[in-house]
């Protein structure tokens, strides 16, 4: 076994285990932290394969920005310490069966198609990547930039709080007793009541 193979196996095992923990962890924040490990392992695989620039881009974009954004979102919505009840239905047979079937199919396909294939590792300097990126791939690259700008604007538009859309509903001036009768629940973050679902509307009607 050569050095690259050992490194590849090690990163692969670590990354695979971390990925499994991402989807099985009962704590969402832990999931996000395991995702960091999995993505770093992916960067390691890139390094072994000789794609240095892609590896650092993976670290910069995924670990430095995407996971931080995910954690940020998690903490903004709800920052639970300890296991959370939401979305932790483990041991479902169906997803497990589907995932195993996908894995088995993919492995069978890989082994039959690329079983004997050997990669000749070569290091690609970032300069070479830059040359093809800005010459041969210039148009897709610019399109991508345009897409990113659109996504940025779209995200801002979606997440923006509209004028007058405060976290607390405006008290009705006609019914002062109602406002006094129901003091805000101090245990929960002040937020708008969820609208009744159509079923409830039908029942009340």
């Amino acid at each position, binding site marked *: 076994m050569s050095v690259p193979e050992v490194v590849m196996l090690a990163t692969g095992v670590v990354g695979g285990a971390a990925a499994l923990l991402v989807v099985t962890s009962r704590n969402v924040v832990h999931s996000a932290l395991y995702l960091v490990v*999995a993505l770093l392992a992916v960067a390691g695989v890139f390094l072994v394969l000789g794609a240095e620039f892609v590896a650092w881009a993976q670290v910069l*974009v995924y670990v430095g920005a995407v996971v931080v954004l995910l954690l940020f979102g998690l903490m903004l919505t709800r920052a639970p310490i300890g296991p959370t009840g939401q*979305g932790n239905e483990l041991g479902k047979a169906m997803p497990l069966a589907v995932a195993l079937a996908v894995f088995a199919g993919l492995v069978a396909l890989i082994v039959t198609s690329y079983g004997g294939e050997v990669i000749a590792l070569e290091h690609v300097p970032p300069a070479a990547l830059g040359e093809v990126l800005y010459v041969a791939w210039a148009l897709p690259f610019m399109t991508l930039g345009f897409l990113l700008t659109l996504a940025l604007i779209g995200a801002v538009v979606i997440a923006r709080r509209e004028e007058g859309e405060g976290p607390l509903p405006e008290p009705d001036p006609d019914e002062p007793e109602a406002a006094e009768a129901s003091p805000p629940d101090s245990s929960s973050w002040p937020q708008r009541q969820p609208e009744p679902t159509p079923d409830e509307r039908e029942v009340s009607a």
Partner: protein
Amino acid sequence: MAAVYPLIFAALLFSVGVYGLLSRRHAVLVLMSIELMLAAVTVNLVTFWAIAGDALLTGQVFALFVMAIGAAEIGVGLAIIMLIYRNRASVNIDDADLMKY
């Protein structure tokens, strides 16, 4: 180096992502599973580039593209989750069923 190692690693990441996507109901976890699947795709792209030895470095370039798409997807996805949370006080994707009826 044998080509199967990175490919099997990618397959593992992808199927784990599939499992997470199907079994978990937490919206952010679903996003994470999608990220795992995207990472599997980038690993595949880079591996196939390493096997084929493309002069245009197609695999690496596409891996970068996938990363950019992933970042954009996370941005928009989290914005949507924030909005749902603000309106429904829940991050369970089963609660976001207003358009079903």
